[in-house]
């Protein structure tokens, strides 16, 4: 059992205890006030989270696109590549990183990376960028990481890596894999 004056607000407190209560009150407010704000506005502003996990729910009528990461080996096979084996730091996040890259979201920030600004200038505006303009850089990085895991003489090394996009047109529980497009990078 806790026998503490600190939890009995009516009791008189020693200065040390009073300091502790004030400190804990400030800590509680510093954490909870922004969390309540995030909750009220349903907005994630790192590091403050609004627990809007799976809020949208699944709408059967809405079509959805998804991607498969694949490699073409030197021996001529096509293999599925689980991205988590390449960059495991991105646990639970790989699919959204890929979606954001396809959508060129890094070009739609208030502060854009200088190399991306240069690319926008070359294309004459964000609206002229093709989808996934930085995807080849990502595929190159993944391809290199995959090949590093294999011996130099292995026929399982990749000569190319690609991202295939499919669409589940939806409305019914079938026809999950209508091919849309592919991004490919020779290694």
């Amino acid at each position, binding site marked *: 059992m*806790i026998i503490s004056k600190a939890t009995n607000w009516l009791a008189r407190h020693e200065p040390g205890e009073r300091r502790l209560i004030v400190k804990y009150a400030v800590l509680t407010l510093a954490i909870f006030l922004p969390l309540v704000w995030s909750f009220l506005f349903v907005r994630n502003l790192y590091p403050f989270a609004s627990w809007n996990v799976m809020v949208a729910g699944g709408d059967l009528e809405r079509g959805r696109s998804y991607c498969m990461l694949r490699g073409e080996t030197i021996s001529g096979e096509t293999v599925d590549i689980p991205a988590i084996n390449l960059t495991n730091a991105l646990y639970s996040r790989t699919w959204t990183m890929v979606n954001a890259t396809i959508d060129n979201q890094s070009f739609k920030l208030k502060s854009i990376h200088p190399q991306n600004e240069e690319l926008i200038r070359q294309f004459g505006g964000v609206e002229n960028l093709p989808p996934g303009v930085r995807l080849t850089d990502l595929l190159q990085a993944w391809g290199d990481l995959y090949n590093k895991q294999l011996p130099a003489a292995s026929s399982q090394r990749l000569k190319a890596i690609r991202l295939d996009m499919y669409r589940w047109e939806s409305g019914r529980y079938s026809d999950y894999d209508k091919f849309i497009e592919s991004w490919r990078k020779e290694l």
Partner: protein
Amino acid sequence: MAQGIVNRVVPRSAFALGVVRSIVHGTFLISILFTSFSALGSLPVTILRPTGAMKFLPWSFYDGLQTPAAMVTFKVVLVLSLLLSTAGFLTVLSTKTSFLLVLFYQGLLRSFGHFNHDEMLAVYCLAVLAFTPCGDAFSVDSRLTKTRAERPAFAYAYPILLMQLLMAWTYFSSALIKLRVAGLKYLSPDNLPALAIFHSLDNLHDTHFKLAFWLPPVKAYLPFAVGFVLLWELLFPLAIFQRRWRWWILSFGIVFHLATLFFMNIFFPHQLAMYLIFVDWDRREYGLSVRSKNSLTAFKKA
């Protein structure tokens, strides 16, 4: 009244808070030890989308950091700090450095992907521990220091209560947001199967379970399951205040998170690890000490 509530529901010793410190910091230590930072550093900086507070850092900083060598150095610093804070050495300093480094690391990950909620509760627990006397027991510091500052039990009990409240908030607010944003549509029969199947189609998720495809034939029953989960989320705060309900609520939480793994390929391991905050470590310590005393007596008798 406040005294009564805290008295009944939270472990109150320096030992209990020390154990919680080790669990929270140790969770990040283990997950970071098994993470390849050099692979992370190989990703192009041009796909980064700094989020929230991460926007305050200039691009030149990210250019310098987002290389395999710099990321490995970052990992070494992070592991060293987490080792110290898990062990409770230089705790006042190491818990703060661990909190700040993990906060930055998690922000970096969210700048590549989306605002994943799995680790957020544990990050808030790091924040609580950084400003509380969590090194007074179950730590290297407490072994090295002969005299310990006298503190009221409240100093150790309240941080544990605060972490439990944070966990309750994650589930409770999640249920309220679902009801606010999606309303009763959230209970439609197609909600769960459509969402689960979408998360099972690609090979970019971490696991590739296909149980989601079993759901459409039984979709008529699924609104009850979804409704039950919503009810469980709303009732989660009872896990703090009702000892009798606690283990039912936490046990269902484990089943729920395993179900999202197998049916949706979405898993929250850090959040699950934080369930250990609800263990009454005072009672465990008492049980262990009684058992070791009994065995010592038996040994002496023998």
